[in-house]
């Protein structure tokens, strides 16, 4: 189900770019880019965690077993970029998502059956990094790029802080120019599709979690 939605978003971005006829070009140095968009954040497995009790033999006594999964979720994002050179830009991004945590409990020592407990959390991400245009790979009017950077994660529940952490991301995408003007406040408009791998490390979580994401956004260059 999640995969199908990802494919739909990518397909939409590709079709939209194919209709554009303008030739894509990297923004000249000194230009500011602002974009807004939406995407899909893939799920992450937290894995099995038994509720173990200590025993005289040293072998744990299992009170019950849990298996936790962070579900995929849509997100909205806003981004600001600044072209340092024709091929290199720095950018900052804010994104909000509401993923659901699902924990399935089974094999309880006293309660029969299994059940799944669910709860949504609000996840805010603020990240920044570098974007490099891969001009030499340009084809069909699509300008590929690579991105990488780091960020800050803040998770809330019922408006109360749950957890903070950081993330690293890397990935790439394509950009297609929709229009451009030699003069004016807005110099060009483009659409952009991103594919990212995010590695999250929350403060109290010993392990890092990897989450893929895909997004499409409308970009205006000033």
């Amino acid at each position, binding site marked *: 189900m999640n995969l199908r939605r990802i494919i739909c978003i990518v397909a939409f971005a590709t079709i939209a770019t194919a209709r554009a006829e303008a030739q894509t070009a990297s923004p000249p140095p000194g230009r500011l880019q602002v974009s807004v968009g939406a995407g899909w954040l893939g799920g992450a497995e937290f894995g099995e965690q038994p509720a173990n009790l*200590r025993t005289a033999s040293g072998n744990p006594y299992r009170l019950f077993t849990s298996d936790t999964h962070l579900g995929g979720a849509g997100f909205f994002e806003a981004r600001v970029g600044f072209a340092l050179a024709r091929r290199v830009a720095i950018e900052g991004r804010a994104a909000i998502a509401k993923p659901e945590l699902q924990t399935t409990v089974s094999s309880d020592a006293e309660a029969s059956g299994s059940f799944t407990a669910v709860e949504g959390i609000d996840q805010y991400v603020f990240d920044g990094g570098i974007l490099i245009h891969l001009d030499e790979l340009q084809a069909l009017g699509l300008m590929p790029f690579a991105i990488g950077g780091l960020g800050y994660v803040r998770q809330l529940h019922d408006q109360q802080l749950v957890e903070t952490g950081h993330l690293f991301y890397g990935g790439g995408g394509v950009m297609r120019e929709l229009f451009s003007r030699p003069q004016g406040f807005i110099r060009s408009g483009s659409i952009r599709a991103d594919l990212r791998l995010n590695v999250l490390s929350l403060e109290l979580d010993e392990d890092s979690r990897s989450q893929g994401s895909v997004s499409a956004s409308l970009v205006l260059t000033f």
Partner: protein
Amino acid sequence: MSRGRIRAWCAIAVFVLALPGTADAYIHLGFEGSGGAKAIKWNVPRVRWYANNGGVPGVSASQFQSELAQAFMTWESVPTASIAFEFGGFTSAAPFEDDDLSVFGFQSEPDMDRVLGATSFIVDVFAGTIIESDVFFNSIFPWSVAAAGDPLRFDVRSVATHEIGHFLGLGHSAIGETELRPEGGRRVLGSGAVMFPISLGRGVITDRDLQPDDIAGVSDLYPDGAFRDETGMISGRVRLNTAGVKGAHVVAFNPQTGALVGNFTVADSSFRIAGLSPGPYVIRVEPIDDADVDSFMDPQGVNVNFQATFHPRLIVAPRGGSTATFDVTVRSK
């Protein structure tokens, strides 16, 4: 002594002053005063303790003192708690003498043939502070200080770690599973806290190490500076049909770390579990059926006639705050 003092006993199998209504995590020991329930705790920067200068077969006085010192260090090392201890010296004074000395020692109590050790207090009933606390180890049992334990003897340091929990003002934890022995008493299948009221048995040394439930309990009673700001609390009620349930054992399980921290519902059926790492928790509710109810609280009004139940939603403990109150509905057995 011009101030009001009371002496109370707390045994490993039975104790009388558990007041879950005074605690946010764990049962804390306390008493009913004129102003209502009051938890007891030490109110000095370093608690001084003494070791009785008598030993028992297999354990000399100096070995006993050394094991006690390590058990005290286990509690003192909890990073989120701010309690400290100092050894005052050896003494000929016996435990349970009203001498303003907190004495640990062996004592023969044949009538308490299921009690490995017990803790007593002298308390300032106005301030709720502990003035003196004595701990005895029942010398009718065989004892050991062997590093890896002795399969025929009880481990001094494990029992000392449990009794020092009481010495600090903690009651018993119910995180454990037991089964009835045909000959009477209970066999522990598994224990999730040093403060579980029944020992894992001879030769077992696992109670030398504190568990998350123990750490939450001592941190709640003696919080370090940032403890309250960096941990969260879960608050709720337990219902059976439409009626509230007193004495339900509620456990918060962290599916990321595996930590188990518990508490009980009080007379108005509410519970609070504090000292939780922020994040989502599975909530499990069960009746008190793995030890005698009076090991934990006054049994009057305690309902044990319901099934172990999981709450259908994950409950997210916020950092530095509490959840909104939620209801957990259980079903009759």
